[in-house]
């Protein structure tokens, strides 16, 4: 062998090989990038100048609608498409979510939803649900809303410890049976062993506020943003919040995971928390071509970080809590999984209002 290849040519090969290998590798990388760039360019070309539909499952004027309309111009900026917001209210939001799920999967129809309600509906298997949360084409999460428990101004219960050790039943107000204010109250009552009487049936949170002002109701669960004005005016104060870690605006208030008295309680409350993590995400129907979904995710990322968008959101006092599309996919799966059967039954009973 050594006779066939001379020493000189061997050196040439050994010196040349890395260069050659380098050349091949660089070429491959450039080539691959250009293929991906091509499909991204395809996606961009696809969206340019087209009309996109953005489904909002609630009537105009509400929080979801406001968020969507704040975001729309920035999505337009980064997709090159024209975004038309369509309100499709009904069945507490389920109508719009169904419609989003069954829309044509060409990537031109996307929408926002109250994913927490979608999760609870799917877990319980409510008649009329036509979607599977794990199959949506997740684009990203706009916001979550930290959940807080507030007490009325004159309440003798000033901290969550006092609540947990109270000998008198505390009246907690809730709106609809099976709704989020109700489920929060019921689950925390079970997990933290609270002596609490849940009075549901109020038409809306303002009515509960009135009840608290009259002293009929001692406290209520609600989203941080909806409780804010009452808290700032001093009429109510927060004693508990959800979350794996404390929300930056209320660093002195414990989370319910912190005060959970047992591992089982911790698991129950983790499940409840996971359900709320999904928040208000944007998604498309299942089956959107991969490049287009990627393109939409990137556009969403850029829109959510655009200083103009953040400025207008701040002015409208809408808090944002961004999460990427990939992370939403994982979160959606996680929110539906309740491994322990008895915990699952507990949640099903709470959502159905049977507790």
């Amino acid at each position, binding site marked *: 062998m050594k006779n066939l290849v001379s020493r000189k040519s061997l050196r040439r090969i050994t010196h040349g090989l890395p260069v050659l290998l380098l050349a091949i590798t660089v070429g491959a990388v450039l080539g691959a990038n250009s293929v991906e760039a091509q499909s991204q360019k395809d996606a961009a070309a696809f969206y340019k100048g087209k009309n996109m539909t953005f489904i909002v499952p609630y009537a105009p*004027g509400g929080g979801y609608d406001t968020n969507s309309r704040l975001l729309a111009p920035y999505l337009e900026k980064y997709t090159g498409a024209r975004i038309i917001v369509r309100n499709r209210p009904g069945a507490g939001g389920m109508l719009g979510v169904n419609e989003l799920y069954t829309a044509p999967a060409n990537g031109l129809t996307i929408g926002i939803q109250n994913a927490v309600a979608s999760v609870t509906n799917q877990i319980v298997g409510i008649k009329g649900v036509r979607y599977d949360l794990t199959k949506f084409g997740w684009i990203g999460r706009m916001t979550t809303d930290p959940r807080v428990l507030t007490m009325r101004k004159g309440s003798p219960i000033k901290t969550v410890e006092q609540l947990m050790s109270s000998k008198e039943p505390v009246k907690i107000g809730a709106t609809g049976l099976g709704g989020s204010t109700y489920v929060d109250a019921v689950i925390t009552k079970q997990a933290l062993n609270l002596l609490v009487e849940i009075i549901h049936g109020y*038409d809306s949170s*303002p009515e509960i506020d009135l*009840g608290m002002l009259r002293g009929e109701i001692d406290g209520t669960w609600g989203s941080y943003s909806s409780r804010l004005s009452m808290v700032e005016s*001093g009429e109510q104060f927060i004693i508990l919040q959800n979350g794996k870690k404390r929300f930056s605006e209320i660093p002195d208030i414990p989370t319910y995971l912190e005060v959970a008295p047992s591992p089982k309680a911790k698991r129950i409350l983790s499940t409840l928390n996971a359900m709320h993590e999904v928040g208000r995400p944007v998604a498309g129907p299942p089956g959107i071509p991969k490049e287009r979904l990627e393109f939409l995710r990137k556009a969403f990322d850029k829109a959510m970080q655009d200083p103009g968008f953040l400025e207008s959101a701040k002015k409208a006092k809408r808090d944002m809590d961004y999460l990427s599309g990939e992370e939403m996919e994982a979160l959606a799966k996680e929110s539906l999984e309740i491994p322990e059967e008895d915990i699952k039954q507990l949640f099903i009973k709470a959502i159905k*209002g049977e507790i």
Partner: protein
Amino acid sequence: MGMFDGLLQGFVTAVSWHLLPYLLVGAAIGLVIGIIPGLSGHFAMAMMIPFVFRMDAAVGVTFILAAHAAVAQGGGVTAILFATPGTGQNAATLLDGPAMTEKGEAGRAVGAAMTACFLGAFFGVFVLTVLLPILRRVVLMFGPPEFFMLAVLALTFIAVLGTGGNINKGLIAGALGLLFSFVGVGNVTGERRFTFGLLQLWDGLAMVPVLLGIFAVSEMLDLWIEGGSLARKAGARHSGSMQRQIFRGVMDTLRRWWLVIRCSAIGTTMGLIPGLGSAPAAFVAYAHAKQTSRNPEKFGTGTIEGVISPESANDAVEGGALASTLAFGIPGSSSMAILITALIILGVEPGPKLMAQNLDLVFLMIWTVVIGNFFGTLMGMVVANPLARVTFLRGSLLVPVLLTIILTGSFVVHSVWFDMIVALVFGLLGYAMKKMDYSRPAFIIGFVLGLMVERNLYLSVKLYGSTFFLQPLALGLLMLTIAVLLYNVRKLFKGRKAEYLAAADAKEKASVQTDLSFCLLLLVLLAVFFVAALGYKPVARRAPLIAMIPLAVMLLGQGAVLARKLKQTQTQNGQVSLWPTIETKKLGKGIRLLIWMILLMLMIYLAGHAGGTALFLILFLVFASHERWVLSISLSVGVTVSLYLLFEVILKITLYPGVIYEYLTALVWS
């Protein structure tokens, strides 16, 4: 700041050069929104929010509140002239307003209504101001027990509304309304009631489509079948003397100041109930006026009091709603919720802080409501003249155009296509009720209050136990309710009945057979609901059953009375057929219009609002109204373009795009 100083300062600020233009523009916008059926004060405010971002507090508040204040004025005009409630607030004006138009007294009605509305708003705001120091305490006196009692009190007025001497029919209508209010998923029970598998009914029947259907669509049906124009019994044209009529109407209202005060008081009180809305207050005020009038049987035929009473109440409600909004930052109504949002955007925090730190803003708001309303009144009177001329146009032109506007209005409330079906179905019901003398206002009162009664009863018992009504204010309201009931019962026995019956026979009524068939139809409907209710949880079926059982009893009673009457005529005139006697010509016209309306909705479903409306109008005008092609095409294009401009372009409400459009876009871009 002293009260008087504050008021003075507020007034001066409101009419300053800085703010006056915004007041005017806001009022103008509000007036227009009021005129458009389906759009309401809530909508007016929601629409203003994007503009508010760039304004400072005083300007923004003035702009929004002025718009809101003028909305009821606009609604009053369309209610009177076109029998179409521009907003829910003006529903009660439909009882006597259109009747006055029929008599050619449209101008007088408009003048009276607008003046009453303005005075009512003024009263509401005046009470608000007077109560300012103790506002918190007053609002806090009302809780679930008091809301329940107020709702029950309002319900008893249903008894008064039975037209003619027929209290039974009034009660049936009210109970029917109650029953329909339970459709949907209630907060209290979480049970899906009477949705019959339709997802669209989960949130219940939306009030505006039901209202538009039962009053406006039915009126269109009537107009089409009877022929003629809206100003049917007008005689000579009074176009020039419209101004004189309006002035006369204004004087009429001013002369009845005591009635105005009473009705405004009713409005303001009911405005304190959160979430009630102004429609029930207007109906209750109407019922009260009828009850205390010397000629109650004239109500419904076009009396001026029948217009003044509801209009005094409907804007006074806002004074009450504004009270709890300002005092606590708790919205008294949906439009108030938007006001709170706007205030927050403007950097003002509603609630005790507002009262403490920005009292000047509060006074400004008070004056804006008054002055905005005033400008709305003036502008409305100017607008009424040209609008009134339209009422003299022939029905064959007006019916299709108004139908498209009404159905579009039903759609636009929640952007739900299904709401148009709701309007249509209730249009049929409303027509039947009109022809057979079942009180539609009684129906509406039941419909609006049903859920409220159930919810507050549940909460009252949960919070205070079964003796909740022994609380002082609730007890007082209970006494009042019993007093009103006893008063009515006594009146009945005192033989006023003869007067009622005489007046009732004078109107054209449907025959006994038709009446009986309608009765049976309602019983069948009731049976269906009953069977459905049996499958619900006990908690959930309690309230509907409480409505259904008396309803069944009354219907059976009604049926028995009618059957006996039929037998009487049989023994007199020999054998009479049992079939409802409806003139076949009229029936034919009615059914054809029904088919046309279904066609309109299908066309909108397929071709979208613009396409469907244009197509429908052209076809209808040519083939059903027998108008000339040129006129038909130009009119339909004009109406379609106006609708499109107004909703899509100016108001930024996306109309229904249509299945074909969506299918095509999906096909082209997949």
